[in-house]
């Protein structure tokens, strides 16, 4: 196809949008709505995922030594942890000595009666270990259990099960989002193909003449596809603006709620860092929705 022809076809497609103002407006709004819902769902998913990820990263393995653990037994554990640190499994760790443990429990309990019988000597020493990757936890914990200074049954804590539950929920959530997404896409494609069908109908005389004069199928189709793609892209751009405004507003509201409930471990993502990603997703989806929508109606109603 010649450049001149491409320009002609692109011009036809663009002017069609203007000629069919009302229907173009309706389809653009459909794309805006569909992509807006898609975007909000996507942002919720991103937020949940990043929060779970950061929770996973913050998750510590806690190791309590036996109260009666000897200096040698303690040294064994420290050596192993440090060795794992150089190996890249352990990100960082801190220790809590018997004295600190006693101080902590005293300040927590405040009631001297309960403290009777508790001495520094019968407090256990403990380690708080952050792993570089939660995936290492199983092996790491198994190994720790083999040390005689560690209480294998009660001495090791790791809240992995909680996280796994959350992750399972996330999987279901992602699945629901995918399903909703498919439904939204189908609706949008259907509505766009309706718009293009009206354009096809409005231009059926022209199309008929084109057929008789011997226009190639592609020559007849392309203006409609250009029209659909443009509608999709304009809808994507508008929807992006809408999403950024709505999300920023929502972020402020949620942040103030989180602060008032002191849920500082949870954080709402800023829009800025994900803006480009969202825009790309919108554009690609918009263009695909528009292109497929017009292709469908052109195929169906242009029996050349």
């Amino acid at each position, binding site marked *: 196809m010649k450049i001149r*022809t491409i320009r002609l076809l692109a011009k036809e497609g663009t002017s069609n949008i203007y000629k069919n103002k009302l229907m173009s407006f309706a389809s653009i709004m459909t794309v805006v709505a569909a992509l807006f819902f898609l975007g909000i769902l996507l942002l919720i998913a991103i937020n949940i995922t990043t929060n779970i990820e950061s929770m996973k990263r913050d998750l510590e393995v806690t190791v309590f030594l036996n109260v009666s653990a000897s200096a040698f037994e303690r040294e064994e554990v420290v050596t192993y942890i440090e060795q794992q640190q150089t190996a890249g499994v352990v990100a960082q760790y801190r220790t809590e000595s018997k004295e600190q443990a006693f101080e902590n429990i005293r300040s927590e309990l405040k009631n001297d009666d309960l403290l009777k019988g508790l001495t520094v000597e019968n407090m256990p020493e403990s380690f708080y270990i952050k792993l570089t990757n939660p995936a290492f936890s199983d092996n790491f914990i198994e190994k720790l259990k083999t040390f005689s200074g560690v209480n294998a049954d009660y001495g090791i804590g790791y809240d992995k099960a909680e996280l796994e539950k959350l992750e399972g929920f996330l999987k279901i959530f992602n699945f629901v989002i995918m399903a909703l997404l498919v439904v939204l896409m189908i609706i949008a494609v259907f509505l766009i193909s309706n718009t293009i069908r009206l354009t096809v109908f409005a231009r059926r005389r022209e199309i008929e*003449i084109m057929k008789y*004069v*011997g226009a190639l*199928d592609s020559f007849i189709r392309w203006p409609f596809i250009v029209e659909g793609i443009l509608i999709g892209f304009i809808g994507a751009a508008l929807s992006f603006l809408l999403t950024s405004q709505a999300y920023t507003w929502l972020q402020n509201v949620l942040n103030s709620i989180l602060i008032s409930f002191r849920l500082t471990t949870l954080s709402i993502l800023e829009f800025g860092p994900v803006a480009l990603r969202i825009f790309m997703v919108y554009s690609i989806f918009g263009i695909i929705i528009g292109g497929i929508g017009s292709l469908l109606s052109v195929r169906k109603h242009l029996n050349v």
Partner: protein
Amino acid sequence: MIRFVDTTKIYSNGVVGLKNCTVSVEKGEFVFVIGASGSGKSTFLKLIMHEEVPTEGEVYVNGYSVHNMPRSEIPFLRRSLGVVFQDFRLLPNKTAYDNVAFAMQIVEATPREIRRQVPLALGLVGLSKKAKAYPHQMSGGEQQRVVLARALVNNPAVLIADEPTGNLDPKTSWEIMNLLEEINQRGTTVIVATHEKDIVDTMKKRVIALERGEIKSDEQKGLYFNEN
């Protein structure tokens, strides 16, 4: 040039369009196809243009086998044909010039070719002065001339006219027929479907008469058949 070999067309609703029709039209001929409505005139023309495909038999047009033609070749068959309709079928939002130029844009002619050919075609049909007029500003005869110019601008080997004078008064009809004859004398094969007895009888061209889908007669210098 155009050859029908034992061609039958039965529409999906059972209506017989054409039945065992064998006929050929040579290069440079001027042929009338006559018959009452429903006699198969339109089917005959539609089969040439690949608007319909035969149920049985073969149709050859300008070297294309229309009866078993890949879809991708249809545009090229049509580029070798010029088509004129009873109801003109001009684009109302384009001037006479643009309507003709449109036919050239579709076949991807260069702007230079378009600038050269369009005035030539409009001149041939005697409409140079109306180039900038829109269809609604022109008379029926003038509109049909624009259609002729559009059909001719890509230099087709065959011109097909389906009732070209059906919407025109007798005087204008004659102007169009004279134009068709002139085009024929320049070497274009012309096929005209009509039921205007006057014109057929006066022009003394080859006449293919159809009745209920069958060829009733095919005569050189024929007359519109007598009701006997």
